[in-house]
């Protein structure tokens, strides 16, 4: 503790250089925090995906539909606990930029399949009583400032109505919260029975199935059994774990995790050079002072510690400011204005940021610190 004053005083030596270095590090950590939140938004579905859930879709592609009759057949397969279908509705609320997922589902099946959706019994009952009712996530409701009882018009892009109209009107009767922080609360669930009766075509067809299995360790066997059940039929299936399905869906945009990691690696490598250069200059300029410290009794290890301490101080100030600002920016809302299912900086990544601060300080400071440690007093005092 008594050396803090010495360490922080040394940082005041070249205020502009120290300030610029701190700002560089700060920018790197802002990027780290913000990009981590974006990666989290893409990965959230994968992370909260149930290990005991499979997704079964058409073997050709997700947009090919499957018969509703598959549900009963799947539920007869050994290891299958329950199956529930969903369909992509793909409508537009007011304007195309207001994107969010809308899916017709069977309410009872949804309640059973997704225990992480927290809904009051009263609102469950209201949805079951209202054929045009919808269940929406809290995040989506907040995004558009909806209230229970609102009538929400959605313009269909895929599913026209029997009456020739393309505007569907739904009643907001229930809202769900996420049991976990990463639970997607940006979805809009329509009742399948209402949807199936009202749509102009495609009756009896669904988009995909979510299948709950009794033993997650047997996911591969059950998936193979499902695919085998429908092999050589008109609509063959592809069954896979929910996490893999969501990951594959996200990967349609690109390998977001890899892209973000690449950007962050480049940023951190550059900043490491900046911080390392600062520390190298700091030590080179102070050869004489460091020799004096040794002359008056500081040990080699003590001087090494002081230089590493300075490196840590610079990196910590910049890194902590960066993480703090990133947290602030993330808490101000997602950059897509609500299209991300979740957008937050996980606590574990904040800790990872702190670890990165220490690692960066060590790498940037160790070479100059070792030079300072090896400094020969008599030689250095003669310079």
């Amino acid at each position, binding site marked *: 503790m*008594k*050396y803090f*004053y*010495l360490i922080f*005083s*040394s940082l*005041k*030596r070249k205020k502009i250089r120290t300030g610029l270095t701190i700002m560089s590090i700060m920018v790197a950590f802002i990027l780290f925090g913000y990009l981590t939140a974006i990666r989290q938004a893409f990965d959230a579905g994968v992370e909260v995906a149930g290990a005991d859930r499979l997704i079964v879709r058409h073997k050709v592609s997700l947009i090919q539909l499957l018969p509703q009759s598959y549900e009963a057949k799947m539920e007869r397969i050994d290891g299958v606990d329950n199956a529930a279908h969903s369909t992509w509705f793909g409508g537009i609320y007011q304007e195309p930029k207001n994107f969010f997922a809308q899916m017709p589902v069977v309410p009872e099946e949804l309640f059973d399949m997704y225990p992480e959706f927290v809904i009051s019994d009263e609102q469950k009952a209201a949805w079951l009583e209202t054929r045009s009712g919808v269940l929406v996530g809290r995040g989506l409701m907040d995004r558009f400032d909806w209230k229970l009882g609102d009538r929400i018009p959605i313009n269909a892009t895929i599913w026209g109505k029997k009456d020739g109209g393309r505007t569907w009107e739904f009643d907001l009767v229930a809202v769900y919260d996420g049991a976990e922080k990463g639970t997607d609360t940006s979805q809009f669930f329509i009742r399948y029975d209402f949807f199936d009766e009202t749509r102009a075509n495609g009756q009896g067809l669904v988009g995909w199935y979510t299948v709950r299995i009794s033993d997650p360790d047997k996911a591969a066997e059950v998936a193979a059994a499902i695919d085998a059940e429908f092999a050589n039929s008109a609509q063959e299936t592809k069954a896979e774990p929910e996490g893999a399905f969501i990951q594959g869906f996200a990967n349609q945009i690109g390998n977001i995790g890899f892209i973000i990691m690449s950007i962050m690696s480049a940023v951190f490598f550059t900043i490491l050079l900046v911080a390392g250069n600062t520390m190298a200059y700091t030590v080179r300029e102070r050869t*004489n*002072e460091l020799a*004096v*410290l*040794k*002359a*008056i*009794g*500081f*040990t*080699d*290890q*003590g001087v090494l510690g002081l230089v590493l301490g300075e490196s840590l101080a610079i990196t910590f100030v910049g890194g902590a400011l960066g993480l703090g600002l990133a947290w602030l920016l993330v808490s101000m809302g997602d950059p897509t204005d609500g299209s991300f299912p979740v957008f937050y900086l996980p606590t574990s990544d904040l800790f990872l940021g702190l670890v990165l601060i220490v690692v960066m300080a060590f790498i940037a400071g160790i070479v100059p610190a070792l030079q300072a440690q090896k400094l*020969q*007093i*008599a030689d250095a*005092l*003669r310079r």
Partner: protein
Amino acid sequence: MTDNNSSETLVKVSSVDKIFKRGSEEIHVLGGLDLDIPNGEFLALMGPSGSGKSTLLNLIGGLDRPSEGTVEVGGKRIDKLSDRKLAAWRARHVGLVFQFYNLMPVLTAQKNVELPLLLTKLSKSERKKRASIALDIVGLSHRAGHYPRQLSGGEQQRTGIARAIVTDPTLLLCDEPTGDLDRKSGDEILDLLQALNKEQGKTIIMVTHDIHAADRASRTLHLNKGQLSVDPVD
């Protein structure tokens, strides 16, 4: 070791060689040098540039090690101490005064003087108190909060002396302490060193080029080509 007994030998340098290597070339700076310094002496070391004065001072202060021979201070062989033990020994027993003061520009005079005390177990308030006393001894109490750049050369050197004496060291090693000062400031520094020697019994070894400064010492030795003599070099 801190007893002010003038008959006791405090520093004993025996058969010391110091060889510097520059690439394949060997430079013999000191050769078979012997020197005894009694406790409480104020010794001036004179000699031309490159004669080895500062090298000898560094060996006595444990800042460097001899190539051959032994250096004893207070009966202890310091040339055989490990780096860590030597650093601790310097912190406890040696006060250093440099020609160019070598103060930390980012620390106030008070904090500069406190620096050696960081290596002790003293509390913050005790460190502050001792540094204030040292500054008072050198007559700089009123400049304690000033940074080196705000002090004159003489004041900076007095701060350097306060830093050197704050741990109450056995030995005070001064490498051309007046070399960067005008005559008036130089005299003030020499007055101060003399007072520390006479009133507080500090053993002082001072390297100087200045015969006027050497006159203040109780003994003057001349170093030339690695050998000591009482007579000046021609």
